[in-house]
């Protein structure tokens, strides 16, 4: 039926909400839904907890859809939840992971922006908060985190696509995520944020060219992660610290989580390399998700083994 959720297609926010309910009811022993807050336009921010009830086990927090137009990102988070529940008990690695750790998955971070990109402007990026005394709408949620916030003065104007907001964590969405991660900090051992496009696997720092203390370890993990990813379809990913691999980005969730104490944080920039950009055709959703799944499972296995 046309309004049914599909992992092979891009789904509207309404379909995604219905999907979260369906998954909860289908696998109540493995999936629970946590409302961590609401967006500027009062949409519910849902995190799906995948794994056993015990909250003391190691966990990985993964968010998708922080930038509205990057539609392949929420598609991956939905695919991840589907595959985790479908292959538990069948796939050795996934079974081992879910027997020992939990995943907190935020399928869409920037819900208001995502809805806007469906209904009004496919290329919208920011959230939909109003900016006092300005006509321009929205804050770039991935510049709104309290880490070297607004250190690049060139983005003062709310009309800029990378406007960091009037203050760090000024946005309800950012605050909801930082509150949740801080309240689960004892168990969260890794943070993964999923974007597109460019085929990159990045790690801290973005706000400075300085290397993180465990740069060598993150480099090794990212290298193996991209190697594993490419085993499926030979998709080539580049990996490295954000600032030197792409450019300096202040106020990002990746650096904030790292500085909070989560010493394994990664950002995926999924397919493609620009042929379609943000408009990746639906026919490429599944291969993109399948190859990315390999990398995320590797990272999770690495975390399980190498964190206390």
């Amino acid at each position, binding site marked *: 039926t046309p309004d049914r959720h*599909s992992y*092979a297609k891009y789904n509207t926010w309404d379909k995604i909400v219905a999907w979260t309910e369906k998954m909860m009811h289908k696998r109540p022993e493995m999936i629970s839904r946590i409302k961590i807050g609401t967006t500027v336009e009062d949409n519910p921010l849902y995190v799906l907890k995948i794994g056993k009830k015990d909250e003391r086990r190691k966990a990985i927090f993964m968010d998708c859809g922080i930038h509205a137009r990057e539609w392949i990102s929420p598609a991956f988070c939905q695919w991840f939840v589907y595959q985790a529940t479908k292959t538990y008990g069948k796939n050795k690695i996934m079974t081992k992971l879910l027997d020992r750790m939990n995943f907190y998955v935020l399928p869409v971070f920037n819900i208001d922006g995502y809805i806007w990109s469906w209904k*009004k402007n496919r*290329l919208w990026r920011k959230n939909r908060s109003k900016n006092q005394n300005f006509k321009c709408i929205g804050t770039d949620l991935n510049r709104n985190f309290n880490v070297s916030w607004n250190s690049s003065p060139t*983005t003062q104007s709310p009309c800029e696509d990378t406007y960091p907001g009037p203050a760090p964590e000024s946005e309800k969405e950012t605050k909801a995520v930082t509150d949740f991660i801080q309240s689960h900090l004892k168990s969260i051992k890794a943070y993964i944020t999923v974007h597109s496009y460019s085929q990159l696997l990045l790690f801290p720092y973005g706000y400075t060219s300085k290397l993180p203390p465990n740069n060598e370890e993150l480099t090794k993990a990212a290298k193996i992660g991209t190697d594993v990813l490419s085993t499926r379809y030979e998709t080539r990913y580049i990996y490295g610290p954000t600032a030197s691999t792409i*450019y300096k980005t202040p106020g990002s969730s990746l650096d904030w989580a790292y500085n909070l104490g989560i010493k394994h944080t990664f950002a995926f920039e999924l397919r493609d390399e620009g042929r*379609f*950009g943000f408009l990746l055709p*639906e026919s490429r959703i599944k291969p993109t998700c399948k190859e990315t799944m390999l990398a995320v499972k590797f990272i999770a296995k690495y975390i399980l083994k190498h964190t206390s």
Partner: protein
Amino acid sequence: VAPVRFDREKVFRVKPQDENQANIIKDLAKTNKLDFWYPDASHHVAANMTVDFRVSEKESQSLQFALDQNKMHYEILIHDLQEVIEKQFDVKEN
């Protein structure tokens, strides 16, 4: 508010060879409405970086003229954005 359409809008890919060409792109961003796809914003543009940006049909001709005049290498990744937006839904219902 009617949904925004992107008829005949284009996405350019430019590779500034040096700081001078990078500054030309930054200047063009001041006088044209460029939506930067990569990097996220014009102030990140640097020499030897792959730069992708969207531009309206109206501004694309003058933009191409400016790039040609400055002997800057570029390619047009997407010639009609609205067409590509509509084509992304290429999977039939299950």
